[in-house]
């Protein structure tokens, strides 16, 4: 027991002693362009030989090294600590992501190390100068606002810097007032502003001293002309100074094209999407984490939370946790944003989660780009208790109001479409039966008329025969039987009337009708009238039968009847 306690105490003491000496490595800035000066600072509580591991081969150190020490007081314990620092400045000539460190401080036979530091070196962004007046060119020094683009899309990063030209070698600046951005746009400083590097440059054919200052990346949030007001400063050469007011600058901010895809997340730049599911073998009802990572360069800080579309059997709990891991570089926000979703698997079995798609706008290609993560299969083990609980919940929810039925139709149903009305088929279909009916009506009528004609002819034939027989009787009638003679005369006239009126039914005609008929046919109606009167006189006993010329009457009657058809 004693031995164990001794070991533990020793280990604790070593741990405490080991933590007493510290070494810190810092790099400022941690994101910069190729050729841009940056500073590596090692701060330690112990003095010794300094060594920094993993410096890139493209690192070029300049001659400026500063060393010194400061003292820190811990006001709680009253302990005073001496910190030794060493700063190097230099440039990196190749773009990329670098991990520098650890830094080692060797004191005696002991070595103390720092943590490692990540830096991001981006490609040099070419800048365009703003306009310069002739007056400015004639001044000893002048300034322009530089930008990487004169026209950008909404959301696209814009790099701005103050560029100062002079005909003399400047020593320092004072009273600097930065260029002003209209609106509430945040400036994201780029590079090392404290370390100004003056270079020789040719500008409009003139050899000048020049340096960049106050480099910022901004993300204009307005569409249209974006005004940048001038910067001001005093440029010194020793005790002499010259006041500079630069020209302003107008940037055109174009709106994004209409009709963005439904999964557009507001990104402008170049991005990729990755998805990580921590555990692909889980139990039913278990909540697992799905991390959606959007990485790339652009306006990462302004992205909207992507909609996570999951199949049935997965429930997303709450809003995702957002972790931003990016740095602002000359090209915009560079790095990634993680969206961590908590998801519960409610079904069991092998479930496939389809890839998540997001769309962004690529300003270089000037179009929307859709990127898709991989599909993942999850194995979910059945949990009896959870399944029972789920089934109960489903039963209860069935009695509640159904908000939206998202079911699709499983069976393909077709709707009859096509123009039949007005087509030849339609008119044929309707026309043939109707025409057939009308034709049938027409033929029926013709047939009926034909039958009627035959019937009438037959009747007329009988009537004619009867009339001829009657006339023969009349012709043969004895002159002694006067009453019989007149009866035959009347019968003959009646038969003649019937015969010559084929369209009428058989009936007895009156005397006037007979006389009218005789008149109309040009017969001797008066003579027949006399005969009929005589007949009536004789029938009713009024006399007049003594001196009758029967033969003459017979002749006249027969002649009149025969002429009735005229």
């Amino acid at each position, binding site marked *: 027991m004693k031995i164990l306690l001794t070991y533990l105490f020793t280990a604790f003491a070593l741990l405490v002693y080991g933590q007493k000496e510290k070494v810190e490595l810092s790099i400022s800035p941690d994101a910069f362009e190729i050729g841009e000066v940056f500073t590596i600072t090692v701060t330690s509580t112990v003095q010794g030989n300094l060594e920094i591991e993993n410096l890139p081969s493209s690192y070029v150190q300049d001659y400026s090294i500063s060393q010194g020490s400061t003292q820190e007081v811990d006001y709680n314990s009253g302990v005073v600590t001496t910190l030794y620092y060493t700063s190097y400045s230099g440039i990196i000539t190749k773009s990329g992501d670098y991990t520098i460190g650890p830094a080692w401080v060797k004191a005696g036979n002991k070595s103390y190390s720092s943590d490692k530091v990540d830096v991001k070196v981006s490609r040099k962004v070419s800048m365009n100068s703003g306009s310069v007046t002739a007056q400015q060119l004639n001044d000893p020094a002048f300034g322009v606002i530089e930008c990487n683009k004169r026209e950008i899309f909404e959301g696209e990063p814009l790099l701005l810097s103050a560029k100062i030209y002079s005909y003399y070698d400047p020593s320092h600046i004072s009273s600097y007032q930065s260029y002003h951005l209209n609106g509430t746009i945040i400036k994201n400083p780029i590079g090392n502003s404290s370390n100004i590097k003056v270079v020789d440059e040719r500008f409009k054919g003139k050899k000048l001293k020049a340096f960049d200052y106050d480099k910022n990346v901004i993300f204009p949030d307005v569409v249209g002309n974006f005004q940048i007001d001038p910067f001001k400063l005093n440029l010194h050469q020793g005790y002499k100074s010259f006041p500079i007011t630069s020209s302003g600058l107008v940037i055109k901010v174009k709106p994004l094209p209409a009709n963005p895809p439904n999964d557009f997340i507001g990104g402008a730049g170049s991005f990729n999407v990755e998805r990580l599911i921590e555990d692909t073998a889980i139990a039913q009802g278990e909540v697992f984490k799905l991390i959606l990572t959007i990485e790339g360069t652009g306006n990462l800080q302004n992205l909207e939370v992507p909609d996570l*579309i999951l*199949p049935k059997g997965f429930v997303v709990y709450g809003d995702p946790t957002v972790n931003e891991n990016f740095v602002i570089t000359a090209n915009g926000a560079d790095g990634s944003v993680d969206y961590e979703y908590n998801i519960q698997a409610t079904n069991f079995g092998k479930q496939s989660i389809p890839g998540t798609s997001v769309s962004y706008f690529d300003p270089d290609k000037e179009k929307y780009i859709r990127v898709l993560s991989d599909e993942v299969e999850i194995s979910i083990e059945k949990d009896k208790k959870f399944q029972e609980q789920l089934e109960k919940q489903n039963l209860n929810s069935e009695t509640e109001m159904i908000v939206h039925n998202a079911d699709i139709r499983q069976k*393909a149903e077709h709707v009859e*479409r096509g123009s039949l009305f007005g087509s030849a088929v339609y008119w044929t*279909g309707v026309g043939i039966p109707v025409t057939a009916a009308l034709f049938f009506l027409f033929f029926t009528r013709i047939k009926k008329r034909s039958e009627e004609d035959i019937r009438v002819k037959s009747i007329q034939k009988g009537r004619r025969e009867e009339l001829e027989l009657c006339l023969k009787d009349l012709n043969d009638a004895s002159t002694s039987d006067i009453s019989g003679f007149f009866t035959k005369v009347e019968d003959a006239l009646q038969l003649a009337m019937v015969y010559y009126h084929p369209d009428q039914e058989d009936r007895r005609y009156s005397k006037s009708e007979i006389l009218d008929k005789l008149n109309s046919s040009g017969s001797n109606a008066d003579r027949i009238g006399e005969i009929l009167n005589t007949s009536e006189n004789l029938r009713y006993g009024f006399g007049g039968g003594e001196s009758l010329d029967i033969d003459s009457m017979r002749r006249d009657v027969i002649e009149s009847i025969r002429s009735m058809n005229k």
Partner: protein
Amino acid sequence: MKSFVNILFLLSITFHSWTQASFEEGNKAYLDAKYDDALSIYEKVVEIDQTNVSAMYNLGMTHIQLKNYGDAIWAFESVLKLNPSDKQAEEQIFYAYTELGAINEWQHILGPFEKALFSISSKSWALFSVIFSVLFSALFILNLVKKNLIQQKYILLFCSSFLMLMILTGFISYKAQTFETGSKYAIVTSSKIDSFLNEKLTSKGPELTIGNRLQILREDTASKILEVIDVNDNLYFVHLEDIKAI
């Protein structure tokens, strides 16, 4: 040999079986929540098989899942054009408008009576018309042939009724055909589009918002400008690419 087999195989796939297979494939993608895949499949099916009302409905459902409410309204309006009495499509349109925050803005193109009539296709009405003409003619001929039947007056009654029905169904067929092929509508599927008050597009009208239904009066294919009226009978001119015709 392989290509020969392939050709034979392709030949053996009939049009119907292809669309049916694609439709089922789209359904599977939808159920697997692969909505982008489902969308492209359904779009192909409805492009080729324009009478497949189920595919059009499922296309609308996919747009709903993808939150493309303007396109969803377009798809369900297309379903209603094919089958004006489709209750489910109406419910989905209401849902899409609810999601767009404009529930009271939608009304069926047809009134309830027309909706009921046009739920039967123009072709069917035309067929009814032909059937009634046959029945009318048959009874008419029967009436001529059999003069002394006791049911003569009933035959005449039916005969005249069939004549009336023949004319009526012919008229409905004509109206339904006009609705199916003559009337042209379109839906605004973007969040907002510009409208103009004159054909030269010099005078700007109000912005038309997603889900707006417009009746197309005239289409100038050369300049790609459409003369349209909105539900309040206001006349506008819009760009062809800004809207989606039903």
